C-alpha cells in the first residue's frame, strides 16, 4: 500500500505543513504546540521507516522517484528520489527532529510554537535537500533551511547571537552563491537541471576545475573544512540546544552529501587532480582541530571543534579513493573508504546530537557551558554520567560504538593510499581520547566543588528517553553496522565505477 504513496513528497511537505499548522493553531498555547509538534515529528519519523524497509539494496538506481515538470520553460523539474547515500540521511533527519522536539519541551517557554515550527519547517527543507534530484530544487532547499536556522539562533540564542547568526549566514550564503553559478553553467551545457544528467555531462578539465572549486566553497563551508570552519564554534555556542543538535547532526552532513552527490561524480577528473589538496585539508582538520579542541574551556566549543575533526574523516574517505585506485597492491579499498565516510556521517549524527543534548541537559540545570563551572556531576547525576561516558567513548571511537566504524574503515582504506596518511589520521585515536576524556574528567568526575552542581537533579523521564534512544543506535551501529553498509553497497559500487572513468 505504502509503495504507491508519494513518500518523499510527504516527507518533504508534511513537516512544513505541520510547521505552519503549529504556528496557526498553537500560537497561544505552548503546551499544544509541544504536543502537536511531537505528534507531527513522530508521524513523520514513522512515515520515513518504509523508506528503509521498502528500499531495494541490490540496485544503484534512484528509488521512490517522483518526477514532474515544474518550470518547463527552464527545464526545471520536481524531481525527488533516494539512493543508498541519501536514504540513511533522510532517516537520520526524521529521527533527530523527534529528539529536538523533545529536547525543547520544557526548556523553551517563550514563543514555543514558533520554535517548534522552525524545526519542523527545517526538517522538510533538509529532507528536501537530501531527496532533491533537480539542481534548482536542491538549491532552493539547501538555501531555504538557512532561514529557520538563522531564526532559531537569532531568537532563542545566547548573548552573542547577533554576531554568530550574521557570521553563520554570510559564511554559508557566500559559499552557495558560487554553487548557483556552477549549476546555471551546467544547465546551459546539459539543457537540464537534473543532477543525474549532470553526472553524465562531459566537461573538460578547466570547466571541471572551476565547477569543482565552486562546489567546494559551498560544501567546505557547510562541513566545515579547515580553514572555513570558524563560523561553527560561534554558531554552536550561541545556538539553543535544539539548534546545535540539528546543526551538528544534519546540517554539516549537507556538505559531505554535496561532495559525494555533486563534486565526485560531476567533476571526477578535477577531484582526482585536486585530491592531494583535499586530503591535506582533511588531515589538517583531524589533527590541528583536535589540538584546538583540547584547549577549549567551553563545552560546546569543544564538541564543535571535535565535530570538525570528525568530519575530517568524511572528506578524507571521499578523496582518498583516487590514490587507493592508483595503488597496484591488492584489490579494493575505494568503496571501503567511501562507505566509511558515509557511515562516519551517520554515526556522527548520533554522537554529536548526543553530546550536544548532554551539554543541554547540564545547561538547563546550571546555565553555564564552562567546563570549570562543573566538576563532580556524577555525584548528583549518576545515571546521566553513565550516558555521558558512553557517548564520550563513542566520540573517542571505541569499538562497539558507532564512532569506531567509520574511522576504522577510513583509516584502513587510507593505509592503502599511503602509510603516512593513515598514520596522520590515526593520530585521532590519541588526540580524540585526550580532549574528550579530559573534558569528562573535569566535568563529570571529581568532587562536586560547587554547591549548585551537588543539587542538580538526575535525568527526568523525557531526558531518559532521549538519551536512551541515542544510546541504542550508537551501540547498535557499533555492534552490527552491516545492515547500514548493506544499504549503500550498490550505490557506492556504482559511484566508484563512475569516478574511475575519466570524463576527458
Amino acid at each position, binding site marked *: 500500500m505504502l509503495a504507491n504513496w508519494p513518500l518523499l513528497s510527504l516527507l518533504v511537505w508534511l513537516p512544513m505543513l505541520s510547521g505552519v499548522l503549529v504556528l496557526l493553531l498553537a500560537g497561544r498555547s505552548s503546551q499544544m504546540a509541544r504536543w502537536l509538534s511531537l505528534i507531527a515529528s513522530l508521524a513523520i519519523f514513522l512515515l520515513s521507516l518504509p523508506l528503509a524497509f521498502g528500499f531495494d539494496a541490490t540496485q544503484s538506481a534512484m528509488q521512490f522517484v517522483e518526477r514532474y515538470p515544474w518550470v518547463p520553460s527552464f527545464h526545471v523539474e520536481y524531481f525527488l528520489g533516494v539512493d543508498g547515500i541519501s536514504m540513511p540521511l533522510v532517516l537520520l533527519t526524521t529521527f533527530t527532529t523527534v529528539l529536538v522536539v523533545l529536547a525543547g519541551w520544557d526548556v523553551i517557554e517563550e514563543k514555543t510554537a514558533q520554535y517548534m515550527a522552525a524545526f519542523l519547517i527545517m526538517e522538510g527543507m533538509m529532507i528536501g535537500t537530501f531527496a532533491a534530484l533537480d539542481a534548482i530544487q536542491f538549491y532552493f532547499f539547501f538555501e531555504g533551511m538557512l532561514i529557520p536556522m538563522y531564526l532559531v539562533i537569532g531568537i532563542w540564542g545566547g548573548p552573542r547571537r547577533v554576531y554568530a547568526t550574521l557570521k553563520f549566514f554570510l559564511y554559508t550564503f557566500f559559499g552557495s552563491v558560487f554553487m548557483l553559478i556552477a549549476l546555471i553553467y551546467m544547465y546551459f551545457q546539459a539543457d537540464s537541471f537534473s543532477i543525474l544528467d549532470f553526472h553524465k555531462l562531459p566537461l573538460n578539465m578547466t570547466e571541471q576545475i572551476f565547477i569543482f572549486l565552486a562546489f567546494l566553497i559551498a560544501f567546505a563551508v557547510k562541513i566545515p573544512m579547515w580553514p572555513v570552519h570558524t563560523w561553527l564554534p560561534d554558531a554552536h555556542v550561541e545556538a539553543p540546544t535544539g539548534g546545535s543538535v540539528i546543526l551538528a547532526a544534519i546540517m554539516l552532513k549537507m556538505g559531505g552529501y554535496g561532495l559525494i552527490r555533486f563534486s565526485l561524480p560531476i567533476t571526477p577528473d578535477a577531484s582526482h587532480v585536486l585530491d592531494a589538496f583535499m586530503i591535506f585539508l582533511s588531515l589538517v582538520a583531524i589533527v590541528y582541530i583536535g589540538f584546538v*579542541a583540547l584547549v577549549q574551556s567551553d563545552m560546546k566549543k569543544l564538541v564543535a571543534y571535535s565535530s570538525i575533526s570528525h568530519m575530517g574523516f568524511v572528506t578524507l574517505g571521499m578523496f582518498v579513493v583516487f590514490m587507493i585506485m592508483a595503488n597496484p597492491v*591488492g584489490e579494493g579499498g575505494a568503496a571501503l573508504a567511501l562507505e566509511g565516510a558515509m557511515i562516519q556521517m551517520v554515526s556522527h549524527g548520533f554522537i554529536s546530537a548526543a553530546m550536544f543534548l548532554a551539554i543541554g541537559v547540564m545547561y538547563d540545570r546550571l546555565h553555564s557551558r564552562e567546563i570549570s563551572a562543573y566538576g563532580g556531576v556524577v*555525584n548528583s547525576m549518576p545515571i546521566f554520567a553513565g550516558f555521558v561516558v558512553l557517548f564520550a567513548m563513542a566520540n573517542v571511537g571505541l569499538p562497539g560504538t558507532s564512532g569506531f566504524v567509520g574511522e576504522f574503515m577510513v583509516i584502513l582504506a587510507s593505509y592503502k593510499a599511503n*602509510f603516512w596518511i593513515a598514520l596522520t589520521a590515526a593520530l585521532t585515536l590519541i588526540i580524540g581520547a585526550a580532549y574528550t576524556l579530559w573534558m569528562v574528567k573535569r566535568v563529570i568526575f571529581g568532587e562536586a566543588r560547587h554547591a549548585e552542581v551537588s543539587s542538580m537533579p538526575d535525568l527526568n523521564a523525557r531526558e531518559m528517553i532521549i538519551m536512551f534512544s541515542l544510546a541504542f543506535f550508537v551501540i547498535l551501529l557499533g555492534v552490527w553496522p552491516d545492515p547500514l553498509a548493506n544499504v549503500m*553497497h550498490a550505490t557506492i559500487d556504482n559511484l566508484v565505477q563512475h569516478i574511475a572513468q575519466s570524463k576527458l
Partner: protein
Amino acid sequence: METIYLWIALAPLIGSIIAGLFGRQIGRVGAQSATITGVAISFVLALYAFKVHVLDGGEVFNGTVYTWLASDLFTFNIGFLIDNLTAVMMVIVTSVSLMVHIYTIGYMAHDEELWPETSRARAGGYQRFFSYISLFTFSMLMLVMSNNFLQLFFGWEAVGLVSYLLIGFYMNRESAIYANLKAFIVNRVGDFGFLLGIAAILVYTGSMDYHEVFKQASQLAGIQVELIPGIEWSLISVICILLFIGAMGKSAQIPLHVWLPDSMEGPTPISALIHAATMVTAGIFMVARMSPMYELSEAALSFIMLIGAITAFSMGLLGIVANDIKRVVAFSTLSQLGYMTVALGASAYSAAIFHLMTHAFFKALLFLAAGSVIIAMHHEQDIRKMGGLRKFMPITFWTSMIGALALIGFPGFSGFFSKDAIIESVHASSLPGADFAYWLVLLGVFVTAFYTFRMIFLVFFGKERMDKHTREHLHESPWVVTVPLVLLSIPAVMIGWVAIEPMLFGDLFKDIIVVKPSHDVLAQVGSHFHGAWSFVLHGLMSPAVWLAAAGVLLAWLTTMQFPVVAQQAEQRFSWLSRLLKNGFGFDAFNTIVFEKGSLGLGRGLWKWSDLKLIDGFMVNGTAQSVGRLADVSRLMQTGFMYHYAFVMIFSVLAIMTWVLFF
C-alpha cells in the same frame, strides 16, 4: 560446541548487564549472584572446552558467529578460534575472574565508606563494581577467543575501557581520575600502532582472519616497503613492530609502562584481575598467537627482546624503593611482564605463555593477599607502617609467602619453572641482543627477590608499627577473602610441576605456536629435560637460584637486622634513590613534553591561527574591508544635485575624449 563457546563469552556479559542496569532494583546480593553465576557458568564451560581440546585432543574450532561488516571486497567477522592456546587462556581468565568475583564480596563489603556521603553515586557502587568486572571478563574472553584481528582489536579496546572505568572507580578522587585518563591515553598510543599494523595486514592480505593471514605471512616477508623514501624495510617487520607497539601499551613495556603503577588507584580486586593476571598479559598472548608472523622477522624479535629485558630489570629496581604495598606488587608485575616479553623475543613463545599462566595465579594471589592486608589495615597501604601481621593474619601470611616464593622463583614453586625456562631460553638464543638480555634477566632475579622479601619482611615480620587503634582491630579477613587466597595458592605451587612438560616440551601448542628450527631455543633447553624433578635439581645449580637467595638474604639484612644500613645507603646514594622514586623521570618527561606540549600547541593554533589569522584577518578582515569600502563609496552619495550633475558632465566629457582621440 559452538553454542558452548558462545555461552562462555556471553554468560559474564549477561551477568554484567543485569548487575549494571538493574543493580538498584536487585540490590547487592542480586548483583553478586547474577555476575558470579555468569562467571561460574563460563568457568565450568571453559573447563569442559579445556577437556575437549587439551585432554581429549579435540579438533580445532574456527568459525564465524556473525558478519560484523562486509564492505568492498573485505569481510569483517566476529568469530571464534578455539584451540589449545585459547582453551588454556580461557581457563586462566575465568578461574582468576571467578576467584576475584568471590573475593570482591568481602573486599567491597564496606565500599560505601569510601564515598562522600552526599554522593548519589555511592549507593550503587557495589553493584557497579560487579558489573564492571563481569564486563571485563566478557571482553577478555572475546579477545582470547577471537579468530580475527578485528575482534582482537574489539576485545583489546574493550578491556581498556573497563580498565579505565575501574581505575577511576572512586570518581571523587583526583588521583584516581588522573590515573584512569592517563591509562587510557597511554594505551591509545599503543593502539595507534596496533591499528596501523592491522591496516597493513588488511591492505596486503585482504583478510582479517588469522589463518588466512598466517597462510600469506611468508609472502609478506618477501615484500619490501619504503615508508621513508630511500630506506627499505621488510613489510613483515613493519607489521610485527606496529602490532608490538600495541602490546607495549597493553602489557606496559617501556616506555609505555607509565600507566600501570598509577593504575593501582583502582580497588585491589581489579589490580589482581586486570592489572596483573589477565588484561596486561593480552599483549603477550597476542604476540604468541601471531608467532607465525613474528618468526619471519628477526628485527622485530630482537626489538621485543631488548624492550622486554630493559623493562624486566629497570622496573624491578623501582620496586625496591616503593613503599606502597600495591605499588611494590605493581612494579613486580611490570618486571614479570618484561620477562614474558623477553621470552617472546627469544622465540620461546610457549615459555612466555607458561610464565603468563603461573604469573596469573601467583600474582593474583599476591594482589589479593595485599588487599586482605589493606582491609585489615583500614586502607593504609604504606608498608613502613605495617609489621608483624604474621600473628594476626595467618592465612593471609602463608598464602602471601607462597605467592612471594613463586614470584622469586624458589625451586619447586610454579614461578621457578617458568622463569628458569625463560632465562635458559634467552641464554640459548642467538639473536642480536640476546647476551645483553640474558644478563639483565639474570640480575633481575636478584632484584625481584630483594624487593619481594623486603615487602614480606616489612609487612609480616618485625615490630608492629601501625597506630594503636588499627592494631587493636587487626584480624584475619572473612572467608570470602581467604578462600580465594587458598584456592589460588594451589596452582601457585602446583601448576609448574604439571604443566612444564606438555607446555614447553610437549606438543600442546603444536601448529599453534610456530617456531623456526633455527630459533627453537626451547628445543635446546628441552634436550636436557628429563622430567620436572631433574629440572628442579638442575635449577639448584643454576646462578638464578643463588641470586634469588642472595636477594632474600639482603632483604633480611636491610629490613630486619640492620635497617640502619638501608637508611645510610639511601642517604649516601640519595641521587639514585631520587631517580628511582621518580621512576627514571618518565612521568616528568611526559608531563613536560607531551602534556604541556600538546596544550601549548593547541593554544597556539587556536589563538594565533584560528582567532587571529583566520577569524581576525580573513573573516572579520574581509567584513571590515567591505565596511570600509562602503564608507568610501558612501561619500559619493552626497544627495546634492549639483554634485551629480558635475559628475555626469565630467564623465560625458571624458568618454567623448576617449572615443574621439583614441
